[in-house]
């Protein structure tokens, strides 16, 4: 009768069980790894397997050093890399907002049947491999790619333009990949919005631009905030897009971390790079969680 014993155990402890099982998993595979990153970020690199000094030496003394962090903060290359990652992610976010807002507005204002289809077409690319969508742009932006061939055929240019391996190409890749993340939360707030308010403002003599900035924009703010954070946060650590579309000088932080780890095999420095990146993201991540908590409150 072991089965009924198991059942009894589950019935008596079900609350504890549904908490404990995922909790344990996350402690082992989510929290513990961060403790390890922290530990390795204060170690020294050595040529050994694994390539860093243990936390305690043979005599049991703690060996920890701030060297990796002081190096990161004083080395100009890293400062430039972090700054460039932040500015590129921020610019891509603004571009996504400029393209995504009118689209979300259009979708929210379409008739119900059309709206579902339009929404589906926004979500669909998200299900198709991210890597392959970035790859698609390689074929378009090549020197002998579709865009150049088309422009030459039109007679606009007679020499292929250099589109790939420049910051321009990274922006295209970022905006293309993250646009759905901007449109969906924007759509969700715009769809909830009461259109009569805009009409009322216009009836009372507000010009379209005044109505937009005084009525639509403030009401859409939660969606704007959520959308911007959902684009900005993943864009900062992006690895694939700068690697495939950007040039060799496109030093963005995701790629630097990857190379520091795999090419230079400097595990302590790579860990320190990860921690500084995480610190940069703390504020946006907290903002996002707060805006999502507010959203679930509104929905329920």
């Amino acid at each position, binding site marked *: 009768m072991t089965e009924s014993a198991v059942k009894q155990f589950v019935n008596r402890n079900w609350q504890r069980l549904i908490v404990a099982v*995922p909790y344990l998993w996350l402690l082992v595979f989510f929290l513990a790894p961060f403790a390890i990153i922290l530990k390795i970020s204060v170690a020294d690199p050595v040529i050994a397997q694994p390539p860093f000094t243990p936390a305690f030496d043979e005599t049991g003394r703690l060996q920890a050093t701030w060297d990796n962090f002081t190096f990161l903060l004083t080395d100009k290359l890293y400062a430039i890399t972090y700054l460039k990652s932040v500015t590129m992610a921020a610019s891509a976010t603004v571009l996504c907002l400029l393209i995504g807002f009118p689209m979300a507005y259009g979708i929210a204002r379409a008739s119900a049947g059309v709206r579902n289809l339009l*929404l589906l077409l926004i*979500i669909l690319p998200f299900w198709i491999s991210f890597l*392959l969508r970035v790859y*698609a742009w390689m*074929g378009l932006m090549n020197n002998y790619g579709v865009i150049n061939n088309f422009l030459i055929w039109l007679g606009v240019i007679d020499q292929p333009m250099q589109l790939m391996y420049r910051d321009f190409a990274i922006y295209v890749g970022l905006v*293309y990949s993250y646009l759905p993340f901007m449109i969906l939360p924007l759509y969700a707030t715009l769809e909830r919005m009461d259109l009569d308010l805009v009409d009322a403002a216009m009836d009372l003599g507000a010009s379209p631009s005044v109505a937009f900035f005084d009525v639509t924009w403030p009401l859409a703010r939660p969606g704007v905030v959520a959308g911007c954070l959902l684009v900005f946060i993943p864009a900062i650590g992006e690895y694939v897009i700068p690697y495939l579309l950007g040039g060799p000088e496109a030093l963005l932080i995701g790629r630097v971390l990857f190379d520091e780890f795999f090419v230079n095999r400097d595990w302590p420095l790579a860990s320190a790079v*990860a921690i500084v990146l995480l610190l940069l993201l703390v504020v946006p991540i907290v903002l996002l969680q707060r805006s999502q908590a507010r959203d679930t409150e509104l929905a329920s």
Partner: protein
Amino acid sequence: MKRRSAFVLSALAFGYAFLYVPLASVIFYSFNDSRLATVWGGFSTRWYGELWGNDQVLDAAFLSLRIAVTSATLATVLGTLAGLALVRVTRFRGRTLFSAMITSPLVMPEVITGLSLLLLFVSLQQLVGWPAQRGFSTITIAHTTFSMAYVAVVVRSRLAAMDQSLEEAAMDLGGRPLRVLVDITLPLIYPAMLAGWLLAFTLSLDDLVIASFVSGPGSNTLPMYIFSKVKLGVTPDINALASLVILFVSAGVLLAWLVTRRGPGQPGRT
């Protein structure tokens, strides 16, 4: 409204063209006979045939599918439990830490998740000798960890929107918690679990960065194989592979859309 609608319409047209022209162009050029991927050399399906004969692609695809099915299933179990814990167990020690850990993987940069998990696996190997080698098991664990967060969020919003009175009634009538879970709660939340499973499955198939960190020599997932090829430029056989993925996924999503549209009214956002 009226005055702006021309602007909105053109924004929509431009936006959708921006989203779909690249995909269309990949499909178009996959039927290109020329070895030079962007010079048109006549219609041909030979790249699809070559794909079928390429063992590396098939092995990588098979490994990716095995990882995706296993990790999506594990993530659905763990994520559903986590969702239940968050909504139905209102007080327990460390609840704040728990809910923070559940939602953080959603926004964690992939490079950090990948690096931290690899360092964990290396340390574990030193301490307890497991995992002896990295590959299927380590990638599956990594994918389960980040995709269970997505499942938990989907299940949680379904549970929060659900009427609790059915469960309470079953409990009042003497239903044991396990029975109530199996007979009442799970049938009510299974659409969310299914959506979560599909999401986890797709995320796993899609992941390149985390898998690159935690895999060992010799185990290449499909995205890793594709990445190693496209680093060197556009090739016609990857065009064919990409087209197959695009068509397969589009068909699946359209089918799911048509089925759920006829089903009982449930929130369209997943």
